């Protein structure tokens, strides 16, 4: 069995993206935690816009983190992200999933506009807010996602429930 990847380091990953000038929003398990339902997560998930220039910056950030494409440990190349919906990189800051924004309300601009701000010492970055997290979780629908929704509902009461294209129509 291969060695377990390094544990995720959200602040290091975010710092590399900011240094590279890449736009992103934290989604996934860390966004659930930021919305006060604290549970384990072992990777970093970043939502990115559909923007070739931003893709270039994302790859620059991943390379600075010694990233390789996880599935074959290939050095990162432009085509690994260009016109792709997803890229999983194994980096010194753990596994980083790059996820392309979806259709509204899960598009990059909407999620970014509703994001919270995480402020570390000398470092600030956006983390998906409750509406977006609920949308992502409803769409994914795995047992863990349903558990996240139950946990969030226990904290916030009735959750925001924006219609999702293809799911609610």
């Amino acid at each position, binding site marked *: 069995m291969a060695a*377990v990847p390094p544990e995720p380091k959200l602040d290091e990953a975010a710092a590399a993206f900011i240094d590279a000038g890449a736009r992103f929003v934290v989604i996934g398990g860390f966004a659930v935690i930021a919305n006060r339902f604290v549970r384990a997560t072992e990777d970093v998930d970043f939502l990115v816009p559909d923007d070739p220039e931003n893709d270039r910056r994302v790859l620059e950030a991943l390379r600075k983190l010694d990233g390789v494409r996880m599935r074959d440990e290939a050095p990162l190349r432009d085509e690994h992200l260009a016109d792709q919906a997803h890229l999983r990189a194994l980096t010194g800051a753990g596994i980083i999933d790059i996820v*392309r924004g979806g259709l509204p309300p899960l*598009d990059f601009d909407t999620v970014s506009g509703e994001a919270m701000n*995480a*402020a570390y010492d000398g470092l600030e970055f956006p983390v998906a*807010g409750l509406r977006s997290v609920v949308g992502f979780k409803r*769409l994914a629908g795995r047992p863990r996602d349903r558990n996240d929704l139950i946990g969030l509902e226990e904290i916030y009461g009735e959750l925001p429930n924006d219609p999702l294209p293809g799911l609610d129509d």
Partner: protein
Amino acid sequence: MAARGKKTLLEPGHDAEWAKLNREKRRALTPAPDTPIGQLLRRGQDLSAQAIGLLRAVERGGGSSRA
């Protein structure tokens, strides 16, 4: 800017792709059976500390939506 549909997994109909990605991640993150308990506990402790750090960072950042 919204994605052009064909370029996102964030829409219904990609269950098989997500299942494959989730399997890959689960395989990678499952520790070897002989991993020392102390090492697992340290990893859990580090992740918990990071979660608390994120909660504090969100509180410092205002703790609410930017919208």
